[in-house]
């Protein structure tokens, strides 16, 4: 097919995928809400939601790939893809910053007030005069005891796993640039494997936390911040691994050339981002 003019803008035909995306995510969240409240159909909704979401990714990615391979995307479309990526990442940065910010606020601002410092010092005198600032802490009013997660062991090993995956995806990147498909494919396979290993170890860590450390979502502010930060990060690793798998499939088919490979670079960059977020988690959640 002939190249579209650089100024031409491809207009896709109406697509069902955004609506199906909304339905699948709603089903997952509804199911999760029911499950944490002990209602049986919750699990069913979660499974159905994920199945629909998986199908959606496969079908939607397929549409975009077909359009790309048919040469429908002009330079202008390429620019909008790149700009879309930048805005998506901006939202991701703010998403994680808000959770890191919550952790900072709890440890450095709220804890001081509850200890009797600052302009809300009266809270300590009137309500929580037994409270002293120390981290990890459940916060006032939570009596349950737990053991905090140690930095060394699974979290440190997972840091090595993700750092290595950053290296293997870079390996694949250089393979693509030097037209070495074998290197590209091997690098991607290694990265996906390391990503799945990370998520598996994270799941095992959660199981240990619940069964042996009594560290749960009910463990006050420490438990809440621990699970919300590591949980959302784990979700991002899972999504990244799915996207890498899509890129691997395309690499097998030889879709990428040293000149045309935005999809690869966007996913590779996303993987590096997830890796950097983990470094922040390792330092601020597990170590300090």
């Amino acid at each position, binding site marked *: 097919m002939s190249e579209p003019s650089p100024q031409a803008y491809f207009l896709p035909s109406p697509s069902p995928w955004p609506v199906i995306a909304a339905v699948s995510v709603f089903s997952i969240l509804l199911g999760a809400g029911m499950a944490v409240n002990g209602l049986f159909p919750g699990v069913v909704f979660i499974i159905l939601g994920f199945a629909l979401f998986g199908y959606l990714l496969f079908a939607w990615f397929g549409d975009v790939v077909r359009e790309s391979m048919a040469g429908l995307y002009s*330079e202008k479309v390429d620019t909008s893809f790149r700009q879309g990526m930048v805005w998506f990442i901006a939202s991701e940065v703010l998403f994680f910053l808000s959770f890191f910010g919550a952790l900072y606020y709890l440890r450095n601002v709220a804890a001081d007030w509850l200890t009797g410092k600052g302009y809300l010092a009266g809270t300590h005198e009137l309500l929580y005069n037994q409270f002293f600032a120390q981290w990890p802490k459940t916060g006032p009013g939570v009596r349950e005891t737990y053991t905090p997660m140690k930095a*060394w062991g699974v979290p440190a090993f997972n840091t090595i796993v993700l750092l290595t995956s950053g290296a293997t995806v*870079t390996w694949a990147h250089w393979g693509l640039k030097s037209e070495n498909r074998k290197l590209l494919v091997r690098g991607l396979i290694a990265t996906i494997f390391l990503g799945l290993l990370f998520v598996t170890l994270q799941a095992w860590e959660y199981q240990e936390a619940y069964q042996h450390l009594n560290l749960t979502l009910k463990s006050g502010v420490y438990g809440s911040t621990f699970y919300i930060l590591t949980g959302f990060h784990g979700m991002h690793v899972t999504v990244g691994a799915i996207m890498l798998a899509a890129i691997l499939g395309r690499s097998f088919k030889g879709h990428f050339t040293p000149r045309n490979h935005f999809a690869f*670079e966007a996913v*590779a*960059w996303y993987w590096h981002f997830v890796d950097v977020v983990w470094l922040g988690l390792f330092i601020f959640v597990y170590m300090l």
Partner: protein
Amino acid sequence: MPLTFKLPALILAALIVVVLGEALYFLSKDHGDKDKMRVARALSLRVTLALVLFLLLVGGALLGYIKPHGIE
């Protein structure tokens, strides 16, 4: 935590974020030109810096500069 340890760690962390941001900027500007290796180069540097930071953290913990809160 002594400043001689804290300062390099902070500089490294800041550099990682800057280099990652730089790679994103190159990603938005370089339209897949074969000769343009800027994204790959920046991301390679990012991995190297992250590795150095991790080794620094491990070294700091081994030397007792940082005491992870989970260790009893």
